[in-house]
């Protein structure tokens, strides 16, 4: 247990630095950590199966505004080794993962509170134009702090937890164990209900039922159902597009050529300030001209460090500044200018790093023009940032975290449940998607200025993506609910000696297969739509119902 305890502690520390945004988000998932844990403990198959079971709980977590509702990494890194060491079933592993995940939220709150110290330090570094200081404040100090917050708790829980779990298993009566298994079979329903909630499209809710009964009646495996789902969504998108195009053509659509004729030169910078190439010739004023490669590198740096120094006071202020540093250093050779630029960016900033990428591009272009002497004020730059960060976060959270993440993670978990070794790597599709999109949006933002954002939003591709992914997401939640939530009742009544016993489950199956799990998901979905949403309490009530039901012999 020593080696796996050390590994789990170190891994928790590393992934919770949040370096690499979606990258660490993917590799901290229970399904991903199952791989190294399984290899260390010599039972890869079982590790993947347990990891996938725990994973399912966490496919619907959206940390909007960086408020994490539960700690997926802590849950997986403790529950999987303990389950392997004590031979717990995946259902029981799920039942212990849930409280651990909820406890993890407090560590994160503590971190974001303490990180405020580093932002204030960064203010002083910026006053001295110390770029190294920004790196220290955004990465080095929070990471050192992180070791003490992260490593010990996981190390001790894994190292000593197995014995504790064993003795509990020996001591508890059979019905209680059965009750926890029932709870483990029910808890994934909370994960699915959360996804339905964050997707939120009630108009598309029938897709959930289609997915559910498709699987309930045909017993098709998840990946098979996914293939059907993807095809149907693509067909719908295709039909809708051809219908919209013909509708627009009827109203005389301006062709791409027309638009090109209106703006022969691509717009540069914010608003309509167009700058000719001559003005930006390298060396004309001794300041180097930026390339799109600089912009891509700067955004990627922001993607890596956006949340490493996140704090309640200014959230991504440090990360944004950190990403811009190479640009600012290039543009402002004078120390006073560099210092002013750094201070200008150390203000409250928070957005979704991927769909917020056009902001990085626009800001870089504004800084470049300012460095070349254009009258662009601090307020103009801050105004663009604070004005756009909200809408772009709303968009990005809906696409990246509320639809793409559950889709990709659900597929990975479904594959992982079969013990497939490729499953953890599917999780990496999320950061891959994000990096491709982010690099593109950042360069477009730089090239076209703020009008790129209108173009992006107006093109309809974004809405198409949201609707398509939401449709598929709801369908897949139906598929997963029918596959992974288990709830049956052994109840039967005997009326008179001569009659056949009256088996409740048979009656329910006669109505529609799997009706009990369906009711659980729907019930949880409506519970979540309340203004006070206490996930811990809901999970606790779910467990209590399972235990009482087991005691009473209903489940």
């Amino acid at each position: 247990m020593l080696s796996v305890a050390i590994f789990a502690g170190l891994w928790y520390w590393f992934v919770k630095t949040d370096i690499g945004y979606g990258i660490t988000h993917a590799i901290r998932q229970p399904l991903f950590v199952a791989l190294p844990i399984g290899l260390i403990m010599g039972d890869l198959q079982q590790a993947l199966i347990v990891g996938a079971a725990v994973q399912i709980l966490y496919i619907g977590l959206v940390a909007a505004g960086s408020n994490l509702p539960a700690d997926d990494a802590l849950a997986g890194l403790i529950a999987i080794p303990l389950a392997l060491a004590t031979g717990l079933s995946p259902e029981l592993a799920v039942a212990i993962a849930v409280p651990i995940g909820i406890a993890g939220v407090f560590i994160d709150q503590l971190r974001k509170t303490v990180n405020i110290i580093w932002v204030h330090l960064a203010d002083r570094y910026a006053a001295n134009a110390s770029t190294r200081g920004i790196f220290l404040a955004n990465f080095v100090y929070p990471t050192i702090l992180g070791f003490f917050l992260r490593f010990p708790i996981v190390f001790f829980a894994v190292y000593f937890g197995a014995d504790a779990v064993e003795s509990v298993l020996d001591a508890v009566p059979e019905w209680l164990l059965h009750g926890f298994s029932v709870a483990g079979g029910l808890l994934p329903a909370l994960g699915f209900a959360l996804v339905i909630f964050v997707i939120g499209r009630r108009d598309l809710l029938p897709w959930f039922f289609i997915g559910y009964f498709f699987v309930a009646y045909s017993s098709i495996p998840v990946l098979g159902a996914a293939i059907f789902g993807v095809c149907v969504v693509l067909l719908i998108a295709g039909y809708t597009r051809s219908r919209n195009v013909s509708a627009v053509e009827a109203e005389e659509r301006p062709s791409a050529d027309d638009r090109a004729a209106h703006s022969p030169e691509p717009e540069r910078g914010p608003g309509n300030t167009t700058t000719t190439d001559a003005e930006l010739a390298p060396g004309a004023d001794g300041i180097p001209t930026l390339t799109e490669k600089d912009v891509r590198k700067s955004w990627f740096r922001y993607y890596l460090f956006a949340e490493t120094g996140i704090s309640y006071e200014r959230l991504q202020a440090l990360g944004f500044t950190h990403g811009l540093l190479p640009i600012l250093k290039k543009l402002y050779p004078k120390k006073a200018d560099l210092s002013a630029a750094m201070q200008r960016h150390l203000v409250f900033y928070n957005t979704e790093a991927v769909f917020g990428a056009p902001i990085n591009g626009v800001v870089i272009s504004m800084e470049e023009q300012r460095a070349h002497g254009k009258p662009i004020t601090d307020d103009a730059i801050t105004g663009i940032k604070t004005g756009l960060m909200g809408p772009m976060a709303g968009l990005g959270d809906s696409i990246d975290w509320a639809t793409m993440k559950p889709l990709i993670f659900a597929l990975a978990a479904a594959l992982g449940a079969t013990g497939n070794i490729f499953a953890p790597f599917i999780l990496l599709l999320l950061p891959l998607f994000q990096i491709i999109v982010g690099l593109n949006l950042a360069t477009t933002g730089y090239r076209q200025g703020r009008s790129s954002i209108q173009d992006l939003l107006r093109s309809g591709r974004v809405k198409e993506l949201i609707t398509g992914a939401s449709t598929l997401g709801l369908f897949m939640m139906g598929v997963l609910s029918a596959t992974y939530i288990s709830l049956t009742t052994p109840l039967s009544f005997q009326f008179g000696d001569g009659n056949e016993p009256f088996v409740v489950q048979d009656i329910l199956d006669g109505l529609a297969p799997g009706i009990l799990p369906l009711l659980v998901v729907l019930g949880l979905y409506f519970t979540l739509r309340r203004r006070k949403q206490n996930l811990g309490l809901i999970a606790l009530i779910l467990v209590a119902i399972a235990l009482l039901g087991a005691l009473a012999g209903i489940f």
Partner: protein
Amino acid sequence: MIEGIKLVRVDFRLIHGQVITKWSRTVNTDRIVVVNDELAVDEFMADVYVMAAPPDIQVDVYAIGEFVERVQAGQFGRGNVLVLFKSIADAKATLDAGLVFPNLQIGGLGSGGGKTSVVRGISIDRQDADQLEAMQSAGSNVTFQVTPEEPQLSLDKAVKKLR
């Protein structure tokens, strides 16, 4: 008079992830109304707000005066509307213009300038507190809550955190 308005929130970031993925879903909104005088005349920004919303949510940006008129004309009567103010002062101005919301949620206000953090992510100063208290005594129940998962704090408790 305020029928159809399901949630009134003060949030300096207006529309963002918490509003879109959480609150708009809890109140099942089909329309978000952003009330702010500057934005109402900023064509670019208003355009971004309108277009960045999910396909099933309509967004409108109104100046305070126009918003008050529209509410009084009963234009939101049949909707599930979520109203967003950028600042406490804007919400107060709306109240002074004659609209009393039964509930007012303070959801996000930046720090700095001598403000005190009363809930993580929400900072206010004495002047803010005075305005909120005035609104509360005018009949608005003022609460502080960032996301549905986070605890809700009453105005009285929030004010006690100010020195």
